[in-house]
């Protein structure tokens, strides 16, 4: 939204009046789901032997996290939370499978792939989730709940389209399922499916090779320590790229609205300004901004705003001296022809940069420095802190579904084998 106000308008005077009402004849969204469609959906859910809930950012927009939890617990159906839905369903919940998609975990990806019913709630079948659309969840029927009719059938033709507000529709679904059950309907046996899912979860956690003494820091390790040291209720903000994917993968989101990122817009430079906004909005919470060195350089001047206005955010730069995600693609898909991705590890000097802008700057180069640096940062409450982690430039984000390929072609980290993904 851009509101452009000409200068002469700014200088003129007018009588203030509060409008009596707003009349938008062209804005009449359907918020309540169609009862017949809700009944159809409830029947499909009860009949499915291999269901999965594919929860998207619409859950958070519609304030539907509690409703989602009720639906999942009522039916015992697992939930995948897309990049935009992280936190909409607690990662600590036994039914939570975490993030699906290009860099999602193998269990979430495979559960979607092999399901016989996708319950898509406020999600849009983004290409980062579906991979090659024609091979996405080939045996699944689709219930698609979205308030925007244009999303229905845009990518995947739904069997049961429901236009409506996610919270209202999920609540109606829960009532309908209870109603059907009260009338004697029983849910199909999902036991075999659930045990397959738990098998995958055991075999396919996110993993990386820990660094040997003397080797470069692993970014995943930094995130694990950051996660385990963060005060309860910390809001995590990220930019765009490898650090964003690692953040989503390794963090544990236990409540809604604790994860801020730009999703499909893919706006590098989002992190620092967004973190400032988050801290102003929730001054009672710790706000950690996990950023890449490339992203950080785009909007880091806003740290002056944070210092001047006394907005004590905490920034963790995962400095791998590259535009890491682009580097990863060039390594994997462009025969290591690296082009325009190298940045300097030393320039700019991030510690001096932070201090020049009124923040505390800390540099971390070895694993044993990680915990003390984070502890120190967590103690500061009167000004912004910037912690620069010098991390391994060769580290790539896994798992990965290469762009345009099927989710079945997922590339797993070393030590995991696809032969057990069945």
């Amino acid at each position, binding site marked *: 939204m851009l509101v452009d106000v000409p200068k002469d308008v700014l200088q003129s005077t007018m009588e203030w009046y509060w409008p009596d009402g707003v009349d938008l*004849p*062209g804005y009449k969204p359907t918020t309540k789901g169609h009862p017949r*469609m809700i009944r159809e959906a409830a029947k499909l859910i009860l009949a499915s032997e291999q269901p999965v809930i594919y929860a998207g950012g619409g859950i958070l927009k519609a304030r539907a996290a509690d409703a989602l939890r009720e639906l999942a617990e009522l039916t015992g159906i697992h939930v995948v939370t897309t990049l935009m839905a992280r936190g909409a369903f607690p990662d600590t919940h036994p039914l939570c499978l975490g993030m699906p998609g290009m860099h999602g975990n193998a269990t979430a990806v495979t559960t979607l792939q092999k399901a016989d019913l996708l319950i898509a709630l406020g999600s849009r079948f983004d290409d980062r989730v579906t991979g090659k659309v024609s091979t996405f969840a080939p045996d699944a029927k689709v219930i698609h709940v979205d308030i925007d*009719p*244009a999303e229905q*059938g*845009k990518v995947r033709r739904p069997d049961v389209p429901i*236009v409506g507000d996610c919270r209202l529709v999920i609540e109606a679904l829960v009532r309908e399922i209870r109603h059907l059950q009260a009338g004697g309907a029983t849910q199909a046996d999902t036991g075999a499916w659930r045990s397959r899912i738990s098998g995958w979860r055991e075999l396919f956690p996110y993993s990386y090779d820990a660094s040997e003494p003397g080797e470069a820091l692993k970014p995943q390790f930094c995130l694990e320590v950051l996660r385990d040291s963060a005060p309860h209720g910390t809001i995590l903000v990220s930019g765009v790229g490898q650090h964003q994917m690692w953040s989503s993968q390794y963090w544990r989101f236990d409540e809604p609205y604790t994860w801020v990122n730009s999703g499909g817009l893919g706006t590098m430079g989002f992190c620092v300004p967004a973190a400032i906004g988050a801290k102003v909005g929730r001054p009672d919470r710790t706000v950690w901004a996990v950023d890449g060195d490339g992203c950080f350089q785009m909007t880091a001047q806003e740290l002056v705003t944070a210092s001047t206005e006394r907005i004590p955010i905490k920034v963790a730069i995962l400095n791998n001296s590259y535009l890491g995600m682009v580097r990863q693609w060039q390594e994997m898909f462009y025969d290591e022809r690296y082009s325009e991705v190298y940045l300097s590890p030393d320039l700019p000097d991030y510690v001096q940069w932070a201090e020049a802008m009124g923040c505390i700057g800390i540099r971390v180069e070895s694993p044993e420095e990680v915990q003390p640096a984070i502890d120190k940062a967590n103690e500061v409450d009167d000004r912004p802190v910037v912690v620069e982690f010098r991390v391994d430039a060769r580290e790539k984000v896994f798992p990965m579904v290469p762009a345009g390929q099927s989710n079945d072609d997922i590339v797993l980290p070393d030590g995991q084998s696809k032969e057990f993904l069945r």
Partner: protein
Amino acid sequence: MSAPSRHHILSVLVENRAGVLARVASLFARRGFNIYSLAVAPTEDERFSRITIVADVESATLEQIVKQLFKLIDVVKISELDPRTSVERELLLATVKAEPETRGQVVELVQIFEGKILAVGNNQLTVSLDGTPDKLDDFEELLRSYGIVELQRTGRVALPKLERESGRLRALKGKAS
């Protein structure tokens, strides 16, 4: 001209204010679809205008376009009009060569089609004809042999036929359920 089966007529009721037409048209442009004809005029309610768009698109694509159009805040209602169950009219103006030896033939042709002669020059005539787009196509074709100097058509306007209105009018209100 493309096959008539790919022609879809959309009747789009919009709020009558600046910039609305540009938004509607740009939605087609962004998807690379040509608007075949376009007519915009106020309606009986001064708050609204009706845009009648004829576009060459596949039906599946049209469904997305209709849904996207409906997301524009200025769009109040969209109906797709089926040519078989709607009345369509269009106006044609043409300046035609009419040398003394052929002038009689041109005048006769205009009379057969129940058109009008609007202006007479030494060796040109400006004529008008309103009617269904098909009729205008025929007329244009026949005039061509005399030599068309300039031709302008308005693009069609359409409304549903009254007697079958309830049964066949596909009101695409952007609702999928």
